C-alpha cells in the first residue's frame, strides 16, 4: 500500500489532536474536583463564609481550567488548520 506524505501528516495531526485533548483533560478534571471538594469541606467548617468560599472556588477552578482550554485550542488547530 502506497502511503502519500500528505495523508500521513494529516493522519498524525488527527492522532495528535485526540491525544492532546484526551491527556490534557486529565489534569484539570482532577484538579478542579479537588478544589470543589475542599470548598465543600471549608463550607462545612465556616458556613457563614459560603459566598466567599464559592467565589474563591470558581476563580481557582477557572485558572485550573486554562490548561484544558490550551489542549482544546491545540486540538482544534490540529484538526482544522494544520
Amino acid at each position, binding site marked *: *500500500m502506497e*502511503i502519500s506524505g500528505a*495523508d*500521513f501528516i*494529516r*493522519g*498524525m495531526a*488527527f*492522532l495528535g*489532536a*485526540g*491525544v492532546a*485533548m*484526551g*491527556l*490534557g*483533560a*486529565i*489534569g*484539570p*478534571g*482532577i*484538579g*478542579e*474536583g*479537588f*478544589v*470543589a*471538594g*475542599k*470548598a*465543600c*469541606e471549608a*463550607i*462545612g467548617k465556616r*458556613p457563614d463564609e*459560603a459566598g466567599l*468560599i*464559592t467565589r474563591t*472556588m*470558581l476563580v481557582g*477552578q477557572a485558572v485550573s*481550567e486554562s490548561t*484544558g*482550554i490550551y*489542549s*482544546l485550542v491545540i*486540538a*482544534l488547530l490540529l*484538526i482544522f488548520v494544520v
Partner: protein
Amino acid sequence: MDNETFITASRYLGAAFSVGFGAIGAALGEGYAAGIASESISYKPKASREVITTMLIGQAIAESAAIFALVVSMILLFGGPDFHSLNFGWACIGAGLCMGLAAIGSGLGAGIPAGQACLGTVIQPATSGKTNTTMLLGSAVTQTPAIFGLVLAFLLLFLDHSNMPVYPGWAALLGAGLSMGLGAIGSGLGNGFTAGEAVYGVARNPEQVGPTSMVMLVALGVAQSSAIYGFLIGLMLLFVTPKESILIADSARLLTAGICMGFGAIGPGIGSGIAGAYALKEVPRKPEERGTIFRVMLIGMAVAGSTAVYALVISMLLIHYFK
C-alpha cells in the same frame, strides 16, 4: 494470512487484554479493604467476626468487575459467535480492551467503601446494619462503569460488523473499545472515593443515613457522566458506518476519537469523585448546612466535568465532521 488465522489470534489477544487489565482494579481494591479490615480488628479484636463478614461482602462486590472481565475472556477463548470477517478480529481485540480497562476503576473503587465499612463496624457496632446498607448501595453503583464496559464488549462481540469496510472500520472498532474502557476508569475510581466517605460518615452519624444516602446517590450519578460520554462515543463508533477509505487519515481520526474520549473522561471522573468525597465528609457532620454543601458540590462537579465535554466535542468532530 487468511481471515480465520487473524480472528483466532485476535481472540487470544483480546482474552489476554480483558483478564489482564481487569485483574488490576479488583485485586487492589480488595487488598485495600483487607488492609483496613486488619487495622479495624487491631482497634477492637472482639469484633473480628463482624469485620470479616463486612470485608467479605464488600470484596465480593469488588470482585464482580474482575468476574465480568473473566467472562469476556472465556467467551473470547471458547465461545462467541462464528463470524468470518476481518472486522470480527478487530472487534475481539476491542472487546477485550473495553472490558479489561473498564474493570480497573470499578474494582478499585468498590474496595474503598468496603474498607470504610469495616472501620464503621468497629466505630459503631450497634448500627453496622446502616453502614453495611450504605456500603452495598455505594459499591453497587460503583460497578456501573464496569457494566457499561460489559455491555459495549458484548455489542462488539455479538453484532455482525461485516457490513463495515475493514479500512477504516478496524479503527472504529478498536476506538469504541478504548473510548468505553478508558472512559470508565475515572468514574469507577471517583465513585469509590465518594461512596467510601459516605459509608464512614454514616458510621459516625448513623441518624443521618437517609440524607447522606440521597446526597451520595446524586454525587455518584453526576460523577458517572464521563463514563456515559465514553459509552456514547463507543456507540457512535460502532453504529456510524464509515465510508470505505484506505487513507491513514481516516483510520487515525476514528481511532483517536476513542482515545480522546477515553483519556478525557479519566480526570473529570476522578475529580468529581473527590468533590463528592469531601462533600459527603461534611454532610453527615453538619446536617443543617446540607443544602449549601450540596449546591457547591454540584457547581464544582459541573466545572470539573467541563474538560470531559471538550473531549466529547473533539471526538464528535473527529467522527462526524469529515464523513
